């Protein structure tokens, strides 16, 4: 497992609504302080496994498993792919506790820690993608696609975790509403293909801010 040395603060500030604006020194020093605290408790853990797949017109089957991904969007996403990486990762329980504590004693810090840890889990995801790239240098990769995007039901969260034995191996669970716990966690599918993949834009749906984005609410785009 790898250790996170620093958190992408620029990304965290973007989640906080700072487009190209730069926060004042007071905020920046709180951000630095929160980063330090988070780095002390973040224990990035991840798992992934690679499966051969059969892409049908309405679903994708992961061979030799019981998992079937249904929906036209995932079919579209994995078209021309022969394999899929099923991955999951978490920053572990300590982050939840810090955010819980700050929600009582200092809400501004709670919000900042929340954004920083969202940025941190993205970094863990990026690291996994890189590792896969090194393992399969000759394969093209799709971007990360998660349950809940498009018409891929979020209800399969539990099946994804079971498939990877995520609870046993990294302590990652989901609840009855398919919310991942600890909260700063991700599951995703990355398609692997021998042929070049049409670069589909990552777009807003795969962004952490999906739903809460101030830019989107104003009908604008953050530019990323």
């Amino acid at each position: 497992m790898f250790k996170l040395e620093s958190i992408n603060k620029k990304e965290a500030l973007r989640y906080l609504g700072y487009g190209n604006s730069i926060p004042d020194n007071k905020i920046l020093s709180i951000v630095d302080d929160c980063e330090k605290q988070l780095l002390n408790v973040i224990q990035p853990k991840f798992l992934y496994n690679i499966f051969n797949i059969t892409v049908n017109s309405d679903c994708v089957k992961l061979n030799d498993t019981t998992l079937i991904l249904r929906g036209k969007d995932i079919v579209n996403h994995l078209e021309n792919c022969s394999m899929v990486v099923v991955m999951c990762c978490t920053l572990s329980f300590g982050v939840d506790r810090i955010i819980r504590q700050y929600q009582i004693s200092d809400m501004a810090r709670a919000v900042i820690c929340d954004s920083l840890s969202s940025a941190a889990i993205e970094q863990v995801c990026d690291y996994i993608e890189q590792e896969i790239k090194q393992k399969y240098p000759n394969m093209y990769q799709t971007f990360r696609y998660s349950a809940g995007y498009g018409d891929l039901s979020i209800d399969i969260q539990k099946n994804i975790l079971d498939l990877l034995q995520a609870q046993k191996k990294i302590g990652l669970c989901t609840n009855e509403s398919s919310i991942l716990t600890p909260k700063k966690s991700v599951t995703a599918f990355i398609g692997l293909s021998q042929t070049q993949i049409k670069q589909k834009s990552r777009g807003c749906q795969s962004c952490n801010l999906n739903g809460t984005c101030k830019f989107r609410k104003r009908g604008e785009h953050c530019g990323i």
Partner: protein
Amino acid sequence: MEFKELLKSKEFVFLDGAMGTMLQKAGMKSGSIPEELNITNPEMIIQIHRKYINAGSDIIYANTFGANRYKLEESQYSASELISAGISNARKAAFGSNTLIALDIGPIGQLLEPTGSLSFDEAYDIYKEQVIAGKNADLVVFETMTDLYELKSAVLAAKENTDLPIICTMTFEESGRTFTGCSVSAMVLTLEGLGIDAIGVNCSLGPDELYSIVEEISKWTSLPIVVKANAGLPDPNSNIYNITPVAFAESIKKMQPLGLKIVGGCCGTTPKFISTLVETLSYDKYIKPNIKKLTAVCSSTNTCIINRPRIIGERINPTGKKLFKEALLKEDINYILNQAIEQVRGGADILDVNVGLPGIDERNMMIKAVKAIQGVVDVPLQLDSTIPSVLESALRYYNGLPIVNSVNAEEESLESVLPLVKKYGACVIGLTLDKKGIPHRAEDRVKLAEKIMKRAVSIGIPKENIIIDCLTLTASAEQEGVMETLKALKMVKEELGLKTVLGVSNISFGLPNRELVNHIFLTMALSYGLDLMIINPNIEAMTGAVKAFNLLSNIDKNSTEYIAYYNGHKTDIKQTENLDKNDNLLYAIENGLKEQGARITSELLKTTEVMSIINDMLIPALDKIGEQYEKGKIFLPQLILSAGVAQSCFEVIKKKLSSENTQGVSKGKIILATVKNDVHDIGKNIVKVILENYGYDVIDLGKNVDYQVVVDTAIKHNVKLVGLSALMTTTLVSMEETIKLLRANNVDCKIMVGGAVLTPDYAKKIGADYYSKDAKVSVDIAREVFGN
């Protein structure tokens, strides 16, 4: 044969190896439910059991690990069906042998509150169902556990519904912690307290990596130690485990001096591993660990050994505190949590929790408080109540080994409190008083202490878990009693060998300069050998006295802690803020200066009407900030920082009003709740801060809130505005259900909803009155609803 006989009759007890590994070898698909095979292919399971029995297993685990209601949601079989089939397969396999059958139970697969949304009681029910279904087994095994709280619910379910012996093994990382941060010491203290029969580790690591964890276990327990290690570590690509049966057995053998008693294999092990293990250990003897039991308390992540002066924070107690009482009446749990966080920052090692107040449901409040406090701070708790049923509930929902405050030498108290202390394995404070009151003479107090000790020991409470309070008398009323208390304290330590505790602050009641008297009394008591002091840790002179005492008595070696604390301690934050020239509320709010805001407010209160401060200064300042936020000139963190300042101003105002017995400044009561099954509450909490800033009284029901609780609270407090939050598409359903129930009960209130995935249309569709796009809008809505 029974488990206990088995332990006596053999040097080592052999368990089986992996079930999952064998099933995969036999071609089971990943992602399928292994327990279904108990019914769909019993022969396959029986064959595997037989192989382990032939390899020398004295106990086999039935194939029931994941057979719980939650994991089987998609299965056509129920937990009970799969468990009874599992046990019966194991019985068939064991026919003709002496092999015992264990009902094998793993984690539910969902995290408990507060990180997850499963409650302690729900977890208990799930385990209860499993335990009852498997009552024909010879013992119960809880394994691969990572959450001590979940495991506690499981052990209670087993203890309260069967008489079977219980083995618990948790899964640790190399750091010596589980995924939820549970330490070895916390595991042993808590579970041994609950009265299980054997304890240890399984899974996650190979025997070499587990050595240090087993070593740590052996320092803490006298129970038989269980090790079920993996066959080394898996190759990340092939998932094949990397050590041979011989290497495995040799590594396990190294743990024999640590007190290893019960041994088997986990992932990657096969019958060959077990037979090799049996052979390798055949000439070795079991060595029972010889440990000296310590007085220690713990949460699941923090163990506090009472081997030096420890501070118990006294602030969570409504006695004589008006704001605290108000908070209890309003069920304002955050008030209590703030007290908890502050005291831990002040230096408390343990927190006393007392929520007793006439007119409230103390039992319910205690449960809420214990659950909430252990979710935000990790110090152990001291559960404080005069009512045994309140103590029992607190003990049940506490995650770790707490202190019970208290029992006394009266028969009635001994009879009602001590059995609870025994059942839950807690420490207990014994007060040296009885029907006749507090004896004057030290000798007589020691007699009462002895009486309590003897009674506790006679029902199986270890002597180390008894802490005696010789009782501080008020110096102004009973001056000659002060030294008697200290004398008694010393005698209790020397003659009975028990730990001691004193509530310190009582000494100075009725005297001027109480802090000085408290401080000196504490120092005196420390030199008489006081172990635990119940004080206000936020008072520097008190915690400082303990620090200095530790230094002077050579406990704090090389003065390391003392120097680290005082060199790094900032005492002048207030002064720097005070130097700011722009000494007005708007400036303080705009710049996030909390201390300054509070100070200016208390200055203003001397000359200005409360309502004028609120309406003419605070709210315009907030409006200005809100406007800048809407225009994108400032961002969320600044908005909240400013809100934090306003909040501290309001606190000053509240204190003043409360001291004058004036009515509050509430502009209206609002309920806020993150709906059932949703655990993302940060958005709701932002809304709360902002609404409170504008003078609204927010009843915060927290997250994962039952529909009915929202309805009941709205009716009980006659609330006119209810705010509901949901982050996920999957929890919008709960939002809709909550609204339906409010309407069905004809609750006369408006409903506003918000959250990431909501849209104005959807809000309308599910019957909400308002869609609140952000915290600022919620204020506009509140203004409209309350007309202010």
